[in-house]
C-alpha cells in the first residue's frame, strides 16, 4: 500500500513528461483560466461582517447668534444602518445623538417584494406627510426647520405606526399613501404614546402626490396630505384648577392637519452641475379643539394656517444662495402670526461637506419679541448616508 502511494506521484510525473509541450501549454492555460475565473468571480470582501448593514454618519454643527447671544450647538450625530433583511424585506435604523441626548429617529422595516405596486413600511418612521416634515434637519435647505412646520407638525413627522403606499401603474407619476400611527410629530405632546388607548385616538394619514415634467428642463410636483385624529382624551389638571373631580374631555376633540405642497424644479441638462433652481411652497391648516396649557380644560376649536415658500438657486459647482419666507399662526390664536424671513448661502465644499450661512429676521404680532438670528452650519457625511428618493 505504501509502495503504491509513493509510486503514484512518480507515475503522474512520468505521464506529464510523456505529454507533448503543446498539451502542457494547453493544460497550464486552462489551469490559469480557471484560477482567473475564480479570482474575478470572487466577492470583493469575504468576512463574517460581509452581510452587515451599510453604515453612515451625518455630523451637523451650528454656531448661532440670536440678538447678540451666541452658542455653539452640537445639533446631531446621525448614525444610519441599512440592509436587506431577506428577499422580501429591508430594514433601517437612524439613531440621532445631539446636545439633548440620544434617540432613535427611525427604526423601520419595509417590504420589497409585494405585488401590485404596494409597499408596506412599519415601525418608527418619518410619516409621509407633506415635504419638509419628513426631511431630517441636516437635509433641509435652511439651518432651522421653518416655524410653520415645526409648530404645526411638531418637529419632524416622526411617527410609530404603519404605512401602505401604492404607485399607480400609469405613465404619469401618481402615488397614494395611507398610514396609521400612534401620533404624528416628534415633538407633538398631545398624547403619551407609552400608554395604550382606543384606535379612535390614533392618527390616520392619507396622501396623494403627482409629478409632471414640463419640457426637458422643468418639472412640477404636487402633494396633498391629511392627518386625521378622530378623538383625543384630555383630563383636567385638578391640582391646578382646584376642582374636586378632574373633568375628562373626549367630545368634539377631533383634529385634522391638512397640507398642500408644491415644488418646481429647473434642471437644465447643460451645466447641470452648475445651474438649477428649486422653488418650494407648503401650506398647512390645523383644525382642533384646544386645551389650556396648565389647566388642561377645553377652550375653543381653532383653525390656524401656516406655510413657507423658498427659492434656492444653483449658481456654480459650490454656491447655492436662497431665500425663505415663513408665516405661522399661533395654534391657540389664529390671528397671532409669526413671520420669519431668511436669506441663506450654501457652499458645497465637496459632495460630502457643506457650509451654510443664514440670516433670519423674526417679526410678528404673536407676542414674541423681534429677533435677528445669524447661523453658520457645518455638515459632514461619513460613509453611506442616503435618505432616498422621497427626501430628494
Amino acid at each position: 500500500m505504501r509502495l503504491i502511494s509513493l509510486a503514484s506521484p512518480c507515475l503522474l510525473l512520468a505521464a506529464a513528461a510523456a505529454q507533448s509541450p503543446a498539451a502542457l501549454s494547453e493544460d497550464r492555460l486552462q489551469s490559469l483560466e480557471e484560477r482567473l475565473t475564480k479570482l474575478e468571480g470572487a466577492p470583493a470582501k469575504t468576512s463574517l461582517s460581509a452581510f452587515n448593514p451599510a453604515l453612515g454618519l451625518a455630523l451637523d454643527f451650528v454656531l448661532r447668534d440670536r440678538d447678540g447671544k451666541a452658542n455653539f450647538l452640537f445639533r446631531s450625530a446621525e448614525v444610519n444602518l441599512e440592509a436587506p433583511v431577506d428577499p422580501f424585506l429591508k430594514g433601517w435604523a437612524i439613531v440621532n445623538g445631539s446636545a439633548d441626548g440620544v434617540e432613535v429617529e427611525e427604526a423601520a422595516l419595509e417590504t420589497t417584494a409585494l405585488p401590485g405596486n404596494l409597499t408596506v413600511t412599519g415601525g418608527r418612521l418619518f410619516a409621509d406627510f407633506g415635504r419638509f416634515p419628513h426631511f431630517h434637519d441636516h437635509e433641509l435647505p435652511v439651518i432651522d426647520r421653518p416655524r410653520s412646520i415645526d409648530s404645526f407638525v411638531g418637529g419632524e413627522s416622526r411617527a410609530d405606526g404603519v404605512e401602505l403606499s401604492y404607485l399607480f401603474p400609469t405613465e404619469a407619476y401618481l402615488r397614494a399613501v395611507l398610514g396609521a400611527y400612534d401620533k404624528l410629530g416628534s415633538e407633538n405632546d398631545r398624547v403619551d404614546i407609552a400608554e395604550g388607548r382606543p384606535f379612535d385616538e390614533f392618527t390616520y394619514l392619507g396622501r396623494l402626490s403627482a409629478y409632471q415634467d414640463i419640457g426637458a428642463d422643468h418639472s412640477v410636483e404636487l402633494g396633498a396630505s391629511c392627518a386625521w385624529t378622530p378623538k383625543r382624551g384630555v383630563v383636567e389638571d385638578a391640582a391646578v384648577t382646584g376642582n374636586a373631580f378632574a373633568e375628562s374631555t373626549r367630545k368634539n376633540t377631533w383634529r385634522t392637519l391638512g397640507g398642500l405642497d408644491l415644488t418646481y424644479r429647473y434642471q437644465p441638462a447643460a451645466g447641470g452641475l452648475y445651474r438649477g433652481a428649486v422653488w418650494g411652497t407648503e401650506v398647512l391648516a390645523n383644525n382642533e379643539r384646544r386645551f389650556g396649557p396648565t389647566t388642561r380644560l377645553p377652550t375653543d376649536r381653532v383653525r390656524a394656517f401656516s406655510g413657507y415658500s423658498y427659492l434656492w438657486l444653483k449658481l456654480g459647482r459650490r454656491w447655492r444662495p436662497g431665500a425663505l419666507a415663513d408665516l405661522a399662526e399661533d395654534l391657540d390664536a389664529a390671528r397671532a402670526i409669526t413671520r420669519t424671513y431668511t436669506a441663506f448661502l450654501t457652499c458645497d465644499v465637496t459632495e460630502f461637506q457643506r457650509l451654510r450661512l443664514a440670516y433670519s429676521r423674526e417679526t410678528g404680532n404673536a407676542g414674541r419679541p423681534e429677533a435677528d438670528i445669524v447661523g453658520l452650519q457645518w455638515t459632514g457625511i461619513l460613509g453611506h448616508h442616503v435618505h432616498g428618493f422621497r427626501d430628494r
Partner: protein
Amino acid sequence: MNKSRLALAALLLALAARPAAAKLRVVATIPDLADVSRRVGGGLVSVDCLARGPEDIHQVVMRPSFVSKLNRADAVVYLGLSVEHSFLPGLLDAAANPRMREDPAVLGCAGPGCIDCSAGVRVLQKPDSLSRAEGELHPQGNPHYNLDPEDGLLIARNIAAGFSRLDPAHAADYERNLAAFLDELKTRIAEWKKAVAPLQGLKAVSYHKDVAYLGRFTGLDFIDTIELKPGVAPTPTHLARLVREMQDQGVKLIVREQQYESRTTAWLAGRTGAKVAVIGTMADALPGTETYVKFCARNIQALLDAAR
C-alpha cells in the same frame, strides 16, 4: 348567441396574440445604452432613457417620472460599476418593480430584468484602498468604459444576451441585429485605430478622472486631472502645481469633459500653451452625437483636432 360567441372568441384571440406583439419595455440609464439597445432590439423593444447626454452621470437628478418608467419596464440597461449610484438605486427602490430591485450591496440592480453592461469589462483603476480622503472613488474601479469604443462591442453583446434571456422567442432576431451592429462598430474601430496613431504616448490632462479607457484606446497618457481628486473641485494650490507639472512634462493637451466649466480649463491652457479638446462622456452630450458611433467618432476627432 352565435354572434356573442364569435365576439368572445375574437376577444380571446386578440388577448392571446397581444403578448407576442408586445414590445420589450426597456429603460436605459444613459443615451449610449439607449442607442445600442435600440440597435440590438430593433422593432422588438421600446426604449426610454433616464439621463440626458449633457448631464453628469454622477449628478443625474431622480425625477418621479423615472419611477413610473422603471415600474413598468421589463428591463433596465445600465453601465454598472456603481457609476449610477446617485440615481439608480433610489429609483429602483421607489419603482417597486419585482423584476428589478435595488441592490444595496453593489449600489446597483438585482433581479431578472437587470442588464449590467459592465459584465466582462476589463476594469481599470481599481482603487487600492477606499477612503473619501481620495475623493469620490468608485469602489469597483473606473466605470467610464463606454469611452473606449472596443468596450462598445461588449456593451452590445451584454444587451443582446439580456434581451435574449428575457425574450427567448426573439433571440435569433437580437443576434442578427447584434451582428449588424458589431460589424459596423468593428469597421469604425479599425478606422479610428489608424486615425489615433499620432496620439500614441502624447501626454495630457483631463478635468475628471474618467478618461482611462479613452487613454487605453487612443494611447494618450493622462498624467493628472484638473480636479484635485475625483469629484473635488480644483484648488488654487493644486492648479499652480498642475501648471508646473504640465510645463515640466511638456503636456500639450487638455481634455475637458463638456459638463465641466470651461473657465479653469481656458486659464490652464493660457498658462501652459496646451490645446483644449472638449469631449462628451455620454452619447448626445454634444450636438450631432446622438448615437454611440457618432459619440465615439466625435470624441476621437476632437482629440485629433486639438493635438494637431
